[in-house]
């Protein structure tokens, strides 16, 4: 077969070569995005309305907020006659709103049997849960701080110390829950952790007389700051691990 010497062989120019090299590198060596960048990319793709609260969740959590305020009124009443339980009840109850928001979100998927389908989609159930828990913790902070400031009008206490105590309680719980579900069976581990949190704290409140309360009251504000910082660190690290958790492991033990 004779070769036509006049025929020009198409050859890419420098720009085309660079573009193709870049494409090969992007496909072959995908760069891992930061957590914040990934969350914003996900938000842009999905939209906040599906990442955060839907109507059912707003109604349900409005009810929970009402219960939380009622709980606070009880705490303030107890505090006025029996101050020993005050700190313990604040610490134990701090994650209440966060827990109810997260649990309701789980429950909806579980009871409607949508988990199985949603686990096969591009954005993982874990990514969705992680972003929602980040949002819910923000809501938890706002509500806890507002309620404690309101409570400070009625009961006399060290506002800074109680704020740090409440936020430590919230983020220890949230960080612990995220840590528990960053691998293994999602439902079993969530239930175990929530049960353990309630049983441990209520057990301490009920069975240690006033020692637990004294311990909580006696901790210096600085130490509460350290605990809050450590729990925030646990929360952030676990959030990242959950966000990048492989979808395929959700029901494994």
């Amino acid at each position, binding site marked *: 077969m004779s070769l036509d010497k006049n025929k020009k062989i198409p050859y890419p120019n420098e720009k085309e070569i660079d573009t193709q090299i870049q494409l090969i590198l992007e496909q072959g060596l995908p760069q891992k995005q930061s957590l914040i960048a990934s969350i914003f990319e996900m938000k842009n793709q999905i939209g906040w309305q599906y990442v955060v609260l839907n109507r059912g969740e707003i109604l349900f959590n409005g009810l929970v907020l009402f219960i939380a305020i009622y709980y606070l009124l009880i705490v303030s009443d107890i505090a006025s006659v029996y101050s020993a339980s005050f700190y313990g009840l604040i610490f134990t109850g701090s994650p209440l709103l966060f827990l109810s928001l997260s649990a309701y979100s789980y429950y909806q998927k579980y009871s409607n049997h949508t988990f199985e*389908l949603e686990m*096969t989609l*591009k954005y993982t159930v874990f990514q969705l849960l992680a972003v929602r828990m980040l949002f819910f913790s923000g809501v938890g902070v706002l509500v806890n701080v507002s309620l404690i400031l309101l409570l400070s009008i009625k009961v006399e206490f060290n506002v800074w110390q109680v704020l740090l105590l409440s936020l430590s309680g919230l983020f220890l719980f949230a960080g612990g829950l995220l840590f528990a579900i960053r691998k293994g069976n999602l439902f079993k581990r969530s239930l175990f952790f929530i049960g353990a949190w309630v049983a441990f704290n209520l057990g301490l409140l009920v069975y240690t007389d006033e020692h637990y309360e004294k311990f909580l009251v006696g901790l210096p504000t600085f130490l509460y700051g350290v605990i809050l910082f450590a729990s925030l660190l646990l929360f952030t690290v676990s959030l990242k691990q959950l966000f990048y958790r492989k979808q395929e492991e959700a029901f494994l033990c």
Partner: protein
Amino acid sequence: MLVLQDIGKEYGDFTALKNINLQFENGIYGLLAPNGAGKTTLIKMLVTLIQPTNGNILYNGQPILSLGETYRELIGYLPQQFGYYKHYSPKQYLTYLAALKGMDKQEVDSRIDHVLELVALREVKDKKMRKFSGGMIQRVGIAQALLSDPKIVVLDEPTAGLDPKERARFRHLLSSLARDRVIIISTHIVSDIESVANKIIMIKNKELLHSDSVSTICSTLQGKVFETVLSYDDLAVFRQKYLTLEEKQENGKMVVRFKSEKQEDDKWQSVIPHLEDVFLAEYANESTSG
């Protein structure tokens, strides 16, 4: 191309599947076995819901687990139990799923209209799903599986709850879609796939029994399926001796379709075996519960 290499799944001491080797190219594959045979286990492995204990599943040469979201973007999946939010309309639910599938926002509305048209639900796209019948919900499930125009469609018992007209529409739909994608349908209803599947996959005793065309699988019973006419009184004894595949009343007698290794009576008429005959013959001793 989707390839399963020596796939096995164990749950503690219980073996759900073993030594499964399969290859899927564009076309319709019918996964046919009784309930409890391991169909759903295999389906769940294909859509990354569970991991095989042994072996690999490869898509275009790469393990699907390492492909992660790149693989999941290619899948359209209808679970055996299709979950939905009752207070959503089909349009709202499909919009939500489109977001999680990472679909281009510009094309979501037109895709939703298109897939709802395919399953004849476009008229009710804004109605709440709590008022829908089982068949309508199942059609929403089929629509969502096709929403992102996936390259691999995996449907677990897709015709449950559909009436005969809807089943026929579903079969036509599959035929038109199969040209440029892999469609895997798990079912124990032979008629759903007999006329449309390019290949039938049958699992028995946790292992692959057949992976072939309908005609090749049916040829395994060639010369072994017969029909004869019996009186009611003879039927009980006949059943003890032969595996009956179909029994129907006709003019006060029983016309029996059955399997026998050879023709033992001149009155028997040899008939062409159907896939249903193979199914009944292969799984004659297996429980169909669960």
